[in-house]
């Protein structure tokens, strides 16, 4: 069975079933973290894209039901989006915008690359395989499927945790991930 997770600021679905929640937007991600994960304080350092990817992948992997945290090299993590790391970029820019208040933040800068979320997932799950991030101007199923199929050309890769993971600001985001 192919497992799927879908998260927007107002909705959470795992394998087609809606999950109950009280909060919306960024608060929804925190609610999901506390309700379903809870053992990873690094979550609170993450930017919104990473929080989204982390929570979505955790729900997905819980749905998969396979043993967790066993090192493996045969699972790739491949994400797509339109806005790269825009939310993190905007947050970092704010720390350098005003010459009178110029304090570049390393904690903010570290998230100004979209692939960081693939790293967070690899660290959490001990995935030593391929991690990749592709930016597309449009959500294009055909192109994404082609890229995901391409990833299987690496003979080591037997499974992909992948999909669309986008975020423009703290309250506007979308995740559509599955395990292929």
């Amino acid at each position, binding site marked *: 069975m192919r497992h799927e997770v879908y998260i927007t600021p107002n909705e959470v679905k795992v394998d087609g079933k809606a999950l109950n929640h009280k909060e919306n937007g960024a608060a929804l991600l925190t609610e999901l973290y506390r309700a379903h994960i809870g053992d990873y304080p690094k979550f609170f350092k993450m930017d919104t894209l990473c929080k989204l990817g982390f929570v979505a992948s955790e729900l997905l992997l819980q749905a998969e039901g396979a043993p967790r945290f066993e090192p493996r090299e045969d699972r790739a993590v491949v994400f797509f989006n339109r806005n790269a790391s825009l939310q993190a970029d905007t947050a970092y820019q704010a720390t350098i915008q005003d010459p009178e208040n110029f304090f570049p933040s*390393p904690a903010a800068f570290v998230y100004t690359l979209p692939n960081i979320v693939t790293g967070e997932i690899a660290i959490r799950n001990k995935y030593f395989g391929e991690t990749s991030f592709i930016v597309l101007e449009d959500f294009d199923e055909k192109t994404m499927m082609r890229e995901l199929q391409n990833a299987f050309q690496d003979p080591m890769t037997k499974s992909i945790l992948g999909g669309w993971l986008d975020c423009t600001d703290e309250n506007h985001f979308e995740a559509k991930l599955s395990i292929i």
Partner: protein
Amino acid sequence: MDDLIYTLKQQIIEALNLEDMKPEDIDENAALFGEGLGLDSIDALELIVLMEKNYGIKLKDPNQGKEIFKSVSVMADYISKNRTK
């Protein structure tokens, strides 16, 4: 000094996104790095920014951080002696 220690704890919690922690939860004499709060290299860099932003202290050599950030007490002591804000 007690005020400074309390304020510093609040600032550290905020700067390092230590959600769910209150100043009362941090032992000012406990190691900040290594065990304890489990801070990493990026946290150390962020503390350097905190020193400059809130207290006007510019560390010339980032390696000085290892000594200064040993604990909240050591940090507070250094700040009280070197602050320009």
